[in-house]
């Protein structure tokens, strides 16, 4: 149910989405446990076409069992999480509605995101980090380059013969 309505929300007219943006805060703060769970999940994030490669590389990674937001949101407190999510959500909705011209070709994790992620890695992998000084580089991903999106932008389909007609289907927009 919710899935469908969200998908619709994302597909409809931009002006409606501004409304959506305003609603977003409400949605987040009143969300039931279930809503929150959904909003943390790969299913939700990958709704967005811009996420294709991060999603596909994620699903066959060692971390496929996790929720996106196990990494992408701070976990110290529920309040912090909601705040961060709210801000990121607003940014997201801005870009996908009014700001489409400004969406960068290559999406990078922001410094803020990287800080958050790094903390989450260290938290889950506390035992590893504790028993060996494991912070030689700026962040975990300087070494763990393929965790969890990094198996470059080309998924397995590139290693197979192309499917006839697929270029017409993908002629613009993915």
């Amino acid at each position, binding site marked *: 149910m919710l899935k469908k309505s969200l998908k619709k929300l994302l597909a409809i007219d931009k002006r409606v989405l501004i409304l959506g943006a305003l609603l977003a805060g409400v949605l987040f703060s009143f969300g039931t446990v279930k809503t929150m769970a959904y909003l943390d999940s790969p299913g939700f994030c990958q709704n967005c076409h811009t996420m294709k490669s991060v999603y596909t590389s994620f699903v066959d990674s060692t971390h496929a069992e996790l929720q996106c937001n196990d990494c992408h949101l701070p976990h110290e407190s529920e309040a912090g999480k909601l705040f961060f999510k709210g801000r990121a959500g607003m940014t997201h909705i801005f870009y996908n509605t009014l700001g489409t011209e400004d969406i*960068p070709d290559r999406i*990078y994790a922001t410094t803020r995101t990287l800080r958050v992620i790094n903390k989450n890695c260290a938290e889950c992998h506390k035992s590893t980090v504790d028993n060996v000084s494991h912070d030689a580089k700026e962040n975990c991903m300087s070494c763990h380059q393929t965790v969890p999106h990094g198996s470059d932008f080309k998924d397995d389909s590139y*290693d197979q*013969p192309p499917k006839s*007609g697929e*270029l017409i289907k993908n*002629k613009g*927009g993915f």
Partner: protein
Amino acid sequence: SNSSDGASEKTASAKEAKGTTGLSKDEISNEAFKELFPLQYNSYQKNEKMEDTKYNGSVKRSKYDPDKEPLLPVLFNGYGFALEYNEDRGHIYALEDIRDVKRINDKSVGSCYTCKSTAVPQMIEEMGDDYWGANFRQEIWPKGEAMGHSPIGCSDCHDPETMDLRVTRPSFYKGLEAQGIDTSNPTKNDMRSYVCGQCHVEYHFAADNSEVTFPWDNGFKPEEMYEYYNTIAKENGFEKDWVHNISAAPMLKSQHPEYETHASGTHGKANVSCADCHMPYERVDGKRKITSHYWTSPLKTMDTSCGQCHGDRDLDKLKDRVLEIQDANVGALHEAQDISTTAHYYINKMITSGVSQDKIKQAQEFVRKGQWFWDIVAAENSSGFHNPQGSMDSLRESVVQSNNAILLATEELVKKGVSIEELNSEIEKVKTAVQAEAVNEKKKDHAVNSYFPAQQPVVPAVKK
């Protein structure tokens, strides 16, 4: 994994529902694709832009320019490449540039047209092997114009009905197969390089019918292709591209071996394809993503070209690294060209001093080889980036071989009482004269004089 809808709204309309474009399978005009694929078509139009990078880019400048390779009019003396040779630019200019270039003359053959026009596949189909040797100006060009050719266009890489990637130049699969590579089932990743490998490769014209032929039987490395030219090609009657006007050596001209160099290099060995860097995904028209069809220096689009894979690196520093690789390469290239120049003149002096034919022949083989090993790097358009170590290795081998020629010559010349000091100073004089000449096509004339007389009285048919 439930994002199947929504997609249809983004793709255009009914035509594609069937998985075909509705275009004729023989469509060769770019404009026919415009309406169906406006995003890619517009992207293609960007190929008109002209903008240089430190060593490459797309301004039509002469390769003889002081900051490029000023000794080329000496090194290609007696051949079309000493007449006019330019930096390459966008695909969109391919027809214009071949029509105008002074390397094309009344004897030029159809083969020259092979990598410039969308009309080629069909012509080959119609004419069979007669296509290759047919006269360029008399027959091929007018025919192409009449067919409505486009410069390197959609149909060169795409099947107009399905838009599937395809290889349209038969020489490519022939070349791969000669090396034992199975071409029956290429992957999507392969195709993203194969479509480029049809044209961005070293080639020669077969002796019997002028067919465009790739020298790949032994492998893609400079030494492997050289071996091919000295064995298989010779057996098939192909000995040389031209006779050098200074050393009288039977020479090879190498040409744009991007595919071969890339395949043996850092990225090729890591399975990166040409399209990954030269056709990055880009966002156009709001939020749609397409494959860029603006083929140019990726240094202009590092964010999309390199950032996908090197997102962890500061792109400015990555660019510095590229320039560092290129600086080393170009510095070494200039040194190799200088030594090669000396070798040609030493042999000229052997000839005019009456050294034995036997010794001259040995020296000529060395100078031919020395030139091959730098030319395969100079003709490659990435200034060493596609294979930093391999290109440097080739430049190293080049100086070894050129020096063999110089050494042999020195021994014989001194025996004949020739002053090496005088010889060296005469070489400096011609080099200065060539570089001082402002008109590009006249530069070559200063490379020979009464001290270094021309060795090639009959100008052979320009084939490349």
